């Protein structure tokens, strides 16, 4: 291809022209065919940033010049451009774009994704274009009229580009300007991600200069400057209604100018700005006070109004700060608007969105964007007065109605601490009472739990549905398959307790490696050896209670459940007691409350609330007896098998004994078979005739006696875990792990620490509900200690116990390769396993077959569920939004429906 670019430095090359392009924008190259757009794009942008219509024609029609494919080609181009813009990537469109309709579509695309459209016009003489095309054989067939027509269209459109919506237009005239141009990517105004603070974010001031000064002093600012170099960030609405808007402006303008503060505009600044520009605005909502105050300020300080106008004009509607972790705007901002620039982004930042409804006070009902917010960046905003600032889905409103007599609130970032000063007085009567701001559905719900949901709004299906990948801090990304999520959704929505109370589901646990010990399938020796191999010296053996797994959330009172977990007021619910699939343990709520009350009383007497600095506890426990919850299963399956065996064996044994006696008496001369009874029926199964029927029968009889004995042992095994209960009499709860308290994931604490706390809980339980978990500490490197561990297990199981669980004492442990070690393995007793593998599993022939069981998947599942469990507790401890906690909890349930040998 011939290039007409003159050699640099020769002739009359113009000054290199700097073309500013926002780093996130849709760049539209405009020029006739042959004007050098592709060459220009190649020179200034990454190949992947450029979408060419020719290329798209090739994609859909195998021919880059097939004009009949243009319609499809542009659909493809727009689709890809849309995906790129949605992902926040600079995109360059390389097409002629000389027709207004073509540009209109691109401007619309840019607006849909809230990025700025930029036009770069390559205004190159016709002759040059013709020459270039002539050099390209693939364009040889192009009509001579094409370039002149495109040029006419180009010239006609040139002047209207700004009006069409292009915020930036670079018009390059002639090949020399084109060749000399240099594209410079510019950071967007709202992108201050490189600033890391620390910040002090300050809510709506509304002219409350006195409170502002007090707050700044409390935050440690000295005359607008923080000695530790902190930066104040004002969320807007500095002015109106209050006593001294000029004073507030003076302070903030000074701090911004000095670089010790940032400020985003509120709707009140926006309106003030228009007033100062002489526009006709209605003097309402406290603007009258500001106008009057500004007049006096102007008298005292001529030029003040002008400086305010300049300040307001220069405000950027929102900022992205601290590496993208923090977003500040006046009225909040959904994630898709973060770092974007468009009219509607600015509008949302200033005013928020409304549902179109009005409430009983005639005020517009705000669109509850925060309830749907799922972004990772914290959004800090103001605008809507609320009694208390509180986190909702990682967003927080700092407007605590200072001017209405509330308080002025600041948020320290990254500390996430709230600092506030009370209003000196009610400066302005609110239209609706401040407290009422928290009420009413549909309104931006406030007063929700830390990180909790808002009001009645349930979680969103998109939080859990379909194939998902959950990021865990301990085990990387854990995938949930679609069919497992579907099953979990069914159980979660039809049977589980409210997600606000479902903060953890217990992970599955792998058994110890299969034992080769005679008569055993499981034996603790393998467990100790496996931990030793993983470098775990200290383990704890915990008695395994045979009941039903129960997770208990116990709040100090119903108020805590409302405040911390966002339950509706007045239900009296103080927690939850649920099974391993999240179902309530008891059908009637009253019984649940009785259990919770007993645990609560024990915690109170033991002094655990204060010691752990919490108003609630989350416990992992076993609820006994097994027959309490598994009654249906017991009767349908376990007891039924026992019943059938008891019915069948006596008759069979008696018949065998009688036959044996009869045949033995006849032996050794057994009568010859009567004629016609051997192999008579054609094809009929014929028995293997034994030369000595009595002997063969004796073996059968012995075998049947053994089977009858096994069946009795089986019944005895399950009976140990059944006893009648009356109300709570006979019910026992054996806690073995303290999972969480406010702000803390306790599941990673060493087990001796956890058990010591639980022991105190049990000791201080006067009701007899709580049961201690027996334990023995073992050193896996010490043969005597290991032998003691084995002995302890033998004693436990001989006494009818299910067995024990061996856990690393330090709870969360990695092996030498940095991989998670199994958080526990179970060693089940020989008799107990009859319930799992059937009455006759101990017979040598059966054991040898059962030993070939595959533990790999179970172990992998146990680790994944363990990591998810810890993740939900970590998220809970960090005060993360409920949807984040629920995501991990839901994933545990989904994984539980993965195919794995259920006997393990």
């Amino acid at each position, binding site marked *: 291809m011939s290039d007409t670019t003159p050699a640099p430095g020769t002739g009359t090359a113009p000054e290199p022209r700097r073309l500013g392009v926002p780093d996130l924008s849709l760049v539209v190259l405009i020029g006739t065919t042959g004007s050098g757009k592709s060459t220009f794009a190649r020179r200034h942008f990454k190949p992947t940033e450029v979408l060419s219509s020719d290329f798209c024609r090739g994609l859909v029609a195998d021919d880059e010049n097939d004009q009949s494919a243009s319609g499809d080609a542009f659909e493809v181009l727009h689709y890809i451009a849309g995906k790129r813009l949605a992902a926040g990537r600079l995109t360059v469109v390389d097409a002629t774009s000389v027709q207004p309709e073509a540009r209109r579509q691109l401007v619309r695309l840019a607006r849909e994704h809230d990025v700025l459209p930029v036009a770069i016009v390559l205004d190159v003489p016709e002759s040059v274009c013709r020459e270039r095309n002539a050099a390209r054989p693939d364009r040889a067939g192009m009509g001579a009229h094409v370039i002149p027509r495109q040029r006419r269209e180009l010239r006609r459109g040139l002047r209207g580009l700004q009006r069409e919506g292009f915020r930036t237009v670079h018009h390059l005239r002639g090949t020399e300007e084109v060749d000399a141009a240099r594209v410079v990517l510019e950071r967007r105004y709202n992108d201050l991600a490189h600033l890391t603070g620390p910040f002090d974010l300050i809510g709506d001031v509304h002219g409350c200069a006195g409170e502002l000064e007090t707050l700044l002093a409390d935050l440690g600012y000295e005359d607008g400057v923080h000695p530790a170099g902190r930066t104040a960030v004002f969320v807007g609405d500095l002015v109106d209604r209050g006593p001294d808007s000029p004073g507030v402006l003076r302070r903030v303008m000074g701090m911004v100018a000095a670089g010790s503060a940032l400020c985003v505009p509120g709707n009140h600044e926006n309106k003030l700005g228009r007033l100062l520009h002489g526009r006709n605005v209605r003097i309402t909502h406290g603007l009258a006070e500001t106008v009057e105050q500004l007049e006096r300020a102007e008298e005292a300080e001529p030029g003040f109004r002008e400086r305010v106008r300049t300040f307001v004009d220069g405000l950027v509607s929102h900022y992205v700060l601290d590496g993208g972790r923090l977003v500040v705007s006046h009225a909040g901002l959904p994630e898709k608007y973060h770092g974007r620039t468009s009219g509607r982004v600015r509008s949302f930042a200033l005013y928020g969105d409304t549902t179109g409804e009005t409430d009983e006070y005639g005020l517009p009902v705000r669109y509850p964007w925060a309830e749907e917010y799922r972004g990772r960046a914290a959004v800090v905003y103001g605008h809507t007065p609320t009694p208390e600032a509180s986190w909702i889905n990682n967003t927080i409103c700092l407007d605590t109605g200072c001017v209405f007599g509330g308080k002025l609130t600041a948020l320290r970032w990254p500390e996430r601490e709230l600092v506030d000063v009370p209003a000196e007085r009610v400066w302005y009567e609110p239209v609706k009472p401040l407290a009422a701001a928290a009420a009413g559905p549909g309104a931006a719900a406030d007063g929700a739990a830390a990180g909790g949901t808002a009001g009645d709004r349930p979680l969103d299906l998109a939080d859990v549905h379909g194939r998902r990948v959950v990021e865990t801090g301990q085990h990387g990304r854990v995938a949930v398959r679609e069919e497992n999520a579907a099953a979990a959704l069914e159980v979660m929505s039809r049977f589980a307790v409210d997600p606000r109370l479902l903060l953890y589901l217990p992970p599955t646990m792998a058994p110890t490696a299969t034992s080769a010990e005679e008569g055993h399938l499981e034996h603790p020796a393998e467990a100790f050896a496996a931990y030793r191999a993983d470098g775990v010296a200290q383990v704890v053996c915990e008695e395994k209670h045979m009941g039903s797994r129960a997770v208990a959330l116990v709040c100090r009172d119903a108020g805590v459940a409302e405040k911390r977990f966002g339950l509706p007021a007045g239900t009296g619910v103080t927690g939850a007691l649920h099974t391993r699939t999240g179902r309530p343990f008891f059908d009637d709520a009253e019984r649940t409350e009785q259990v919770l009350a007993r645990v609560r009383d024990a915690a109170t007497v033991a002094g655990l609330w204060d010691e752990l600095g919490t108003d609630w506890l989350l416990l992992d426990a076993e609820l006994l007896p097994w027959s309490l919850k598994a009654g249906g*299963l017991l*009767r349908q399956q376990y007891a039924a098998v026992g019943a059938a065996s008891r019915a069948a064996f006596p008759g069979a044994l008696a018949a065998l004994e009688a036959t044996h006696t009869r045949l033995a008496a006849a032996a050794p001369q057994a009568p010859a078979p009567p004629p016609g009874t051997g192999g008579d029926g054609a094809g009929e199964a014929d*028995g293997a005739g034994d030369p000595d029927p009595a002997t063969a029968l004796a073996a059968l009889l012995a075998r049947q006696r053994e089977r009858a004995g096994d069946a009795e042992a089986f019944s005895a095994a399950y009976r140990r875990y059944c006893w009648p209960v009356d109300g709570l009499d006979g019910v026992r709860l054996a806690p073995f792990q303290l999972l969480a308290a406010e702000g803390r994931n306790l599941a990673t604490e060493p087990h001796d620490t956890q058990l010591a706390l639980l022991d105190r809980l049990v000791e201080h339980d006067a009701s007899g509900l709580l049961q201690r978990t027996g334990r023995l500490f073992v050193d896996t490197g010490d043969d005597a200690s290991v032998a003691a561990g084995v002995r302890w297990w033998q004693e436990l199981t001989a006494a009818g116990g299910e067995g024990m669980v061996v856990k690393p004492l330090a709870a969360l442990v990695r092996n030498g390769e940095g991989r998670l070690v199994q958080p526990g393995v179970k060693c089940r007793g020989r008799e107990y396993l009859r319930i799992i593998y059937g009455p006759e599993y101990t017979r040598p022939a059966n054991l040898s077959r059962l030993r070939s069981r595959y533990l790999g998947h179970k172990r992998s599942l146990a680790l994944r569920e363990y990591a998810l469990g810890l993740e939900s507790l970590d998220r809970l401890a960090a005060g993360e939004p409920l949807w984040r906690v629920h995501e991990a909890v839901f994933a545990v349930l989904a994984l539980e429906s993965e195919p794995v040998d259920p006997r393990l």
Partner: protein
Amino acid sequence: MFLTITATGTDAAPATDLGFLLHKHPGKAQEFATSRGTAHVFYPEATTARCTAALLLEVDPVGLVRAAKGKGRGGKGKSPDSALAQYVNDRPYAASSLLAVALSRVFRTAMAGSSRTHPERAAQPLPLRVEVPAVAARGGPGLVTRLFAPMGWQVTADAVPLDPAFPEWGDSRYVSLVLDGEVRLADALRHLYVLLPVLDDAKHYGVAPDEVDKLLRAGEGWLEDHPEQRLITGRYLSRRWSLAREALERLELARLAESDDAEPEELDNAVDETTDTEEKPVPLAVQRRAAIAEALRAAGAARVLDLGCGQGQLVKELLGDTRFTEIVGVDVSVRALAAAARRLRLERMGERQAARVSLLQSALTYTDRRLAGYDAAVLSEVVEHVDPPRLPALEYAVFGSARPATVVVTTPNSEYNVRWESLPAGHVRHADHRFEWTRAEFRDWAGPVAARFGYAVAYAGVGPDDPEVGPPTQLAVFTRTDTRTDARTDTETARTRTDTPKEAS
């Protein structure tokens, strides 16, 4: 698994002829390999006066499970999926289809009624006593009697207690059975061959495709006029319908149930296999669908959600009226949706019809943006399946988030329950109903919900309006009163702001 057959006799007709008829020598103890274990035949007693043949089937329980595993997923040996395969199994002990199979294999000639040596005895009724000490019998001793008595048996059927250590648990599903009668041996065997599996009524995974032929052959001469013929053929043959498919559909849920020490049916109860999802009398369900369709037409709805569509009966009905241009069946149960797809023949539907209907899994306790923007939503017999503490979530998801212009709700009127003859006092109509409302209770729920979310509500009934207790089904039509079309406005372009109340803060 054990049974005995005893014949009594005289010198003229010795009881030991039983050995000839069975083709098994009383002086021997024989064993036969069958597909699921070893069958032993032996004679505890063999005199002229009395001869007892015993059949004992030794089942290998571990082998049973391992054999079943090969059929399902993960059967390649590495990670066996045995959610449906139980090591703890009554099969080794209780008489069931396995014993029936063994009978037919070991006594095939006798069952055919032929005997070369004693043809006249084979053709005549004999004084017989059959004892089966443990019969798995769904339906209990009563059904056992009803099944065997019509063929002339004197039936003694005693329920076996579940566990003498826990008398409060009551009886097991096993029956200790003794049959006395003058019956041809071949007939006795065929009665057992058919009726043992019928009584067991278990999911059985090895049913051959020629079961109909087998049933016709074994039932010849007695099944034709049997008063319980429908039950017998129904149970006998139902074992083979679509079992593999259903087994697969429920695996995930079965595993969750298992991990929670619950029976699969406790969680997997969205599709009622025995009664469909419609209660009797059927006309009420038909009337209900007609009333709902009428309410939708009156509201002018074209795009309709059926929330909790179950097996798709209403979806199918609405498809018949072309004014409904888009019908979305929504259910949380994957199994119900699969059943609905089959009912609607979705796979084979023409393009035009198929474009009008879709089925999706969703849960009404979560908001779901896919459900926004429809003209109407139907909640037919749904709310009563939601635990009361979870109802606010459903209310928000439907009225606050999906926010269709019209919502039609139907739910049972609990006052009417006294009129159901088959319903014991104080019981709900379906085991999964978490509550049932009186007319007043329904209004106490619907009124505030309507007020809170900006709907007007009107009430009606479906079915005969009883002057005392009202209609069996109550219906409410919620109509959105505001102009807001849906809660999501973020696709709107930026609007010009006025200075009025928006800046109130």
